[in-house]
């Protein structure tokens, strides 16, 4: 749905994007992750046609965003960073204005506004001036505006920044709901957000893509495999001889690449899921297992390592 090929962007002599290539498939929710100033917003500004690429191409639904700007803009719903809205307008007036510009037929317009307002929970503020709304409501007005014309693609630039924890959860749920039918590309620097809602993560740093994949894949790839934690009733560490023997035995299992002592237990890195073998080994040796778990992926480590 979105195809970015070798995208470069220079702004007053600075290289902001370097050779970005990225494809977002229909129905996918992709998170663009990166520290501030990495190029997330620039990428989005180019996809939405606000800026133009210095080199490379961006296609939305098979159409070039520079050559067929009007057609691609119509396919996209865009929530810019910090949600710029016209404070002097009322919510309803604003949505009507956007709907008309999006060429929604007059007889359908009211229905669409109602629908978008309902999805985004705007019923209570529909007659209010936008300037008087709280940050959370502004964000929802921005989202309602983006989905009003039922676009195939949603581009959301930091949709949860500045919201309180409850609002963040609501907006995330909304994005997940929308993501069932639409292609969503959103940016964030909050890692848990990516883990919570994305099918795929793309990590950008200093204008370059430094990692891409499913959240779990990314972290296991970085760690060199799956991380498994095991601990036994009898605590051992590197000082005890029994510990050394245990460590060696675990390391001998096929697929295990690395074993470390970890809080009286062991942290194992393996190329495959070796939990069944670990269990058999423990039974054989009469080690009483207290804990055996595939470790939660930790995107934070990945992020730190990739954006160092």
């Amino acid at each position, binding site marked *: 749905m979105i195809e970015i090929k070798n995208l470069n962007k220079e702004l007053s002599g600075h290289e902001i994007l370097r050779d970005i290539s990225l494809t977002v498939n229909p129905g996918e929710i992709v998170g663009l992750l990166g520290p501030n100033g990495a190029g997330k917003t620039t990428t989005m*500004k180019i996809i*939405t*046609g*606000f*800026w*133009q690429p210095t080199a490379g191409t961006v296609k939305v639904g098979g159409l070039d965003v520079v050559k067929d700007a*009007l*057609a691609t*803009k*119509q396919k*996209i719903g*865009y929530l*810019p*960073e*910090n949600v*710029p*809205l*016209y*404070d*002097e*307008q*009322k919510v309803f*007036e604003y949505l009507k*204005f*956007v709907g*008309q*510009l*999006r*060429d929604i037929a007059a007889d359908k317009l009211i229905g669409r506004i109602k629908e978008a307002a309902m999805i985004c929970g705007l019923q209570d503020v529909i007659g209010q*001036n936008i300037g008087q709304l709280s940050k959370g409501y502004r964000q929802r007005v921005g989202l309602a*505006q983006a989905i009003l014309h039922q676009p195939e693609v949603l581009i959301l630039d930091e949709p949860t920044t500045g919201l309180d924890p409850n609002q963040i959860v609501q907006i995330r749920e909304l994005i997940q709901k929308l993501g069932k039918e639409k292609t969503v590309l959103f940016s964030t620097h909050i890692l848990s957000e990516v883990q919570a809602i994305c099918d795929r993560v793309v990590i950008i740093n200093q204008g370059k893509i430094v990692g891409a994949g499913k959240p779990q894949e990314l972290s296991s790839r970085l760690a060199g495999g799956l991380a498994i934690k095991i601990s036994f009733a009898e605590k051992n560490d590197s000082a005890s001889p029994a510990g050394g023997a245990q460590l060696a035995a675990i390391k001998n299992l096929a697929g295990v690449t690395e074993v470390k002592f970890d809080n009286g237990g062991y942290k194992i890195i393996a190329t495959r899921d070796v939990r069944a073998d670990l269990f058999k080994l423990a039974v054989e040796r009469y080690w009483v297992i207290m804990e055996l778990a595939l470790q939660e992926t930790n995107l934070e480590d990945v992020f730190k390592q990739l954006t160092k």
Partner: protein
Amino acid sequence: MRKESKLKIVKILIGKELEVYFNSPIAYVFIGAFLLAGNWLFFNYFFVNGQASLRSYFALLPWIFLFLAPAITMRAWSEEKRSGTIEFLLTLPLSDWQAVLAKFLAALILLALALTLTISLPLTVAGLGALDWGPVVGGYLGGLCLGGLYLAIGLFISSLTKNQIIAFVAGLAACFVLFIVSSSFVLTGLPATLATVANFFGAGSHFDALSRGLIDTRDVLYYVSAAWLFLWLNGRVLASRK
């Protein structure tokens, strides 16, 4: 896209601009200040002169517009840039020139509305004596043209900055220079060849001709093409954002 729907987009954008003008105090303050300043200054001299003519009013008009036209346009682009709504606006399926044209026409409608509300002046004067309507019609036409040019200049300058105050002051200065260039005060100080050029390019001389009741298409054409130039420049500024 069909031509009809292109114009429809301009119409929708004009509607939104007017909505913003009238939902905020801008329109009322503008119209109020315009009527107050114009009427008060005019009637101050009217009874002293004792002539049934609006000449002194139309002599004032360019000076009133000098302050009020940049006041209308100062926020037009600056505020969009400052608040970031420009990004929202220009990522909608519309072209830059539609946005520029809509802002201009909306401001022109506001200005025309204010001008229309001064119709009580000639009606009052006509009731008091024999009014020559030629210069009145010419004066209104000239006012609309000159005001339109000021608005186009103001819009262009507003597109260059995020700061409304700068947009206002720079707009005022630019309009002032363009107006004053063809005043007799400047012309007498210039060599003859330059004076002809200055007289042609200055906004004041064309207004004087119109407000004397000499309705010449060349004067109107001057305003239309000069306004067009600044709107085109405005469009270029928008396009250079990327």
